[in-house]
């Protein structure tokens, strides 16, 4: 029985973070009243003309540079024709055979292997409007409403080479891509708001073969997890067909998240002909070397470089560096905190642990964390200075998240300062010894484990405030006398 190789290519659309739309001056903010951010140009009124937004070109170049692409000095805007109600001109301005960026590459870490995924192209285009079907579904709805607020928002389409070899790699690629686009502030990559979308092409071929098999395209992938699940399902489906000597049909398939299956949407046997033509209103786009260079110079530190720096400068384990550099904001948070507390591993543990856990539970991003890096630093200093124990510090942090107060304020208010001075501890320890003759006798007979129980009793009696290490030392001294 043949062993199959999975071949995957992705097409990603990312909305650019421009202030205005790509060919007009309309606002791009998300969530406005329907049709409140429109003008003759993005409504496609006849006679209105597209004027290219320089910022959109700049962001697309940034994306190209972050993906190691060649930025083409001359590129061309083309019209892609199709009839659809949310496409007011009945063509989309896009780039066909002369894209702005091409021949890029993204490096992935898959387990302990490095994988290079080719980027075929990154091109600039305009977003369509949005259809809102009134009723349950597109079929049963009585009528549809159209919102053109999104129409004309700047997009980049990123097309990979068919270099991806598993569903997991596809997810890792998307995570890396998202990181890169967020770092460069090209896109906010919010799949739930539709600012990042992904379609996947997948085919199988016998291992060792160089010819490609018949591919299917999967749509309606609304999360990175969905991409992985859908591709796993589809690879499996194709494998079973091929092993049963049946054929894979060239078609577009719809991912049903609830059912966990792909369904055939339409045949692709006859490829759609979009009747591309150069847009006669837009002369070829010329970008000069100096502009590209200045954009390159102003690129922020990219995740791979940052990761390496975190390992070298902060002596962090690679795992920590990976996690902390997945988002530019997270990395910034970490570094701001290290400024306060010069103990990177301690900071890393807390950021990756308690902070991210709390944010995740409250569905917040690091940039909107109620506890600023400086505040977290304040707390970690208290740990360093033995003012609070790690256990108490976790409670303090919860209070900080809940109240917005500083660590010192909370510790003082609650009287949570750790008891480390011998006089205060001695009284508590004497009490514990008096009340627990059994375990004391055990310890003295050589059952050293009993010390743990006794320390626990000291902690209990002090309401967690005793310094456990100190308590341990003092207990031993007293019992060994």
């Amino acid at each position, binding site marked *: 029985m043949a062993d199959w190789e999975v071949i995957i290519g992705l097409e990603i659309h990312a909305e650019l973070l421009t202030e205005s739309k790509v060919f007009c001056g309309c606002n791009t903010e998300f969530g406005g009243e329907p049709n409140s951010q429109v003008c003759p140009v993005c409504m496609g*009124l*006849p006679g209105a*003309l597209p004027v290219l937004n320089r910022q959109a070109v700049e962001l697309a170049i940034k994306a190209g540079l972050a993906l190691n692409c060649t930025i083409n000095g001359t590129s061309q805007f083309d*019209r892609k*024709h199709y*009839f659809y*109600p949310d496409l007011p001109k009945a063509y989309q301005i896009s780039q066909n055979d002369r894209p702005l960026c091409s021949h890029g590459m993204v490096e992935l870490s898959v387990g302990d292997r490095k994988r290079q995924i080719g980027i075929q192209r990154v091109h600039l285009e305009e977003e369509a409007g949005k259809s809102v079907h009134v009723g349950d579904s597109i079929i049963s709805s009585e009528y549809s409403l159209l919102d053109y607020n999104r129409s004309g928002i700047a997009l980049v389409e990123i097309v990979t080479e068919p270099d991806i070899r598993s569903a997991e790699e596809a997810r890792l690629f998307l995570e890396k891509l998202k990181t890169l686009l967020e770092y460069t502030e090209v896109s906010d990559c919010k799949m739930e708001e539709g600012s990042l979308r992904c379609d996947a092409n997948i085919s199988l071929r016998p291992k060792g073969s160089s010819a490609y098999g018949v591919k299917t395209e999967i749509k309606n992938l609304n999360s990175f997890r969905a991409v992985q699940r859908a591709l796993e399902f589809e690879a499996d489906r194709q494998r079973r067909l091929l092993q049963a000597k049946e054929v894979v049909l060239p078609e577009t398939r719809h991912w049903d998240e609830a059912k966990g299956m792909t369904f055939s949407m339409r045949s692709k046997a006859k490829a759609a002909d979009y009747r591309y*033509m150069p847009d006669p209103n837009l*002369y070829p786009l010329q970008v000069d070397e100096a502009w590209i260079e200045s954009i390159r110079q102003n690129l922020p530190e990219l995740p791979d470089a940052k990761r390496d720096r975190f390992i070298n400068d902060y002596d962090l384990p690679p795992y920590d560096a990976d996690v902390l550099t997945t988002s530019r904001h997270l990395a910034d948070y970490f570094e701001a905190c290290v400024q306060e507390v010069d103990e990177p591993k301690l900071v890393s543990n807390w950021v990756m642990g308690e902070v991210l856990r709390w944010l995740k539970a409250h569905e917040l991003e690091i940039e909107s964390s109620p506890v600023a890096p400086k505040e977290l630093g304040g707390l970690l200093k208290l740990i360093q200075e033995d003012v609070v124990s790690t256990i108490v510090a976790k409670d303090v942090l919860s209070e900080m998240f809940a109240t917005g107060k500083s660590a010192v304020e909370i510790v003082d208010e609650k009287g949570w300062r750790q008891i480390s001075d011998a006089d205060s501890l001695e009284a508590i320890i004497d009490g514990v010894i008096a009340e627990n003759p059994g375990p004391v006798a055990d310890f003295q007979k050589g059952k050293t484990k009993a010390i743990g129980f006794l320390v626990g009793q000291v902690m209990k009696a002090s309401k967690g405030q005793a310094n456990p290490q100190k308590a341990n030392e003092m207990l031993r001294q007293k019992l060994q006398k």
Partner: protein
Amino acid sequence: MFSSMTISQLRTLLRAREVSAEEVVISVFDQIDKVEGDIEAYVTLCRSEALVQAKRADALLKEGNAPDLCGIPIAIKDNISTAGLKTTCASRILDDYVPPFDATVVTKLKEAGVVIVGKTNLDEFALGSSTENSQFHVTRNPWDRSRVPGGSSGGSAAAVAAGEAIAALGSDTGGSIRQPAAFCGIVGLKPTYGLVSRYGLIPAAPSLDHVGPLTRDVRDAALVLQAIAGWDGKDPTSVQKELPNYEAVLSEDITGLVVGLPKELLDNELDPEAKEAIFGVANVLESLGARVEAISLPHAEYAMASFYLIASAEISSSLACFDGVRLGKRYGEAKDTTSMFMKTRGQLGIEAKRRILVGTAILQEDNYTTYFVKAQKVRTKIREDFQQAFGRCDVILSPTTPTPAFTLGHKLDRPVIMYKSDVYTSLANLAGIPALSVPCGYTEGGLPLGMQIMGKPFDEATVLKVGHLYEQQTASERRLPQKEVKANG
């Protein structure tokens, strides 16, 4: 009669307060009342708005700081967007479309103080050479009402020729200003591509479309051009250039100027009377100090095919938006979007459908390289031909059309013959160069003939100057169509 005067004559009278803008507008509407029933130049008339605008113009004239075209009644072709005023493209599909914005040329004319008389008839979506493709009504030639006024700016040309407007705006994709100007015995200018903004012109073929004036004489063309030319940030193909004073240039002489006569455009297919007229013009220009030289435009014979393919491709794209969703009147009950698209688009006229089918076919992947790309290569060759020619001469002289105005219905069902009559004019659209049509005589039957003066890119000044000097030199031979209108009526 004020309605038969030129802009420059009226300007003098208005400034001297010998006539009021209101009187001029009333005179124009009187003429409209007299002849419009026969001519049918307009789709929409704005009588009451025009009177309001005229009163405003009179107030400015009284203050003494009136803008250049203050109080001049002008007609606008009905494919040029006017805010709040129906803009139909003479199509059923847009017969209730009211644009929410003014075309830049309309904004500029309003700033220059004009009074808008109305919106003129055209071939549907400016596709045609006779205005017979209007889905509303035909327009008749003021010189002979059994004949077409030309097209697609036939309404604008007929209105100016018949005294129903002092001047008009038209659009020109392959000769749509110059050919009707020639047929109606007036002046028409297609400026250099990028000199006049296209923002708000409902497109036919954006790489070939131009907006320009139709006027009674060359001086008026210079005056209107001055008002509408100039860079526009809303038009990405608009060019930033220092503009000359086009009227001031008219008084310069043309001694030593070289006039090129392209042998390819003076061949045997040309009507003998038209040919004779052109040689007559050459003689007049020589007598004024110009030198006439034979030149060659070797790729001119491929112009028609190249023009037709590029125009059709672009037209099929431009007209795609009229699908009944937001644009294009929705006709009939549709079961789904596809049937809605089809019912709406089924309303388009035969020429529009023909262009859409041809354009759609040649943009298909299998045909794209064979037809569209090749047509673009020919276009480049034609541009190079002109660059070469303009190395040897300053302007190029040719007939505007191979024949005078033809009779109504004559060519409607013979599209290829109709397209072929665009051969002289479409060259300038492919090359983007300025081209002016000026009356240059009459046939034995009394129909006007037109000559075309083409110039270097952005050298409207020289083109206008040559046209103006010729016009001055032959002023005594100039006839007025209004006489014929009366004689026939």
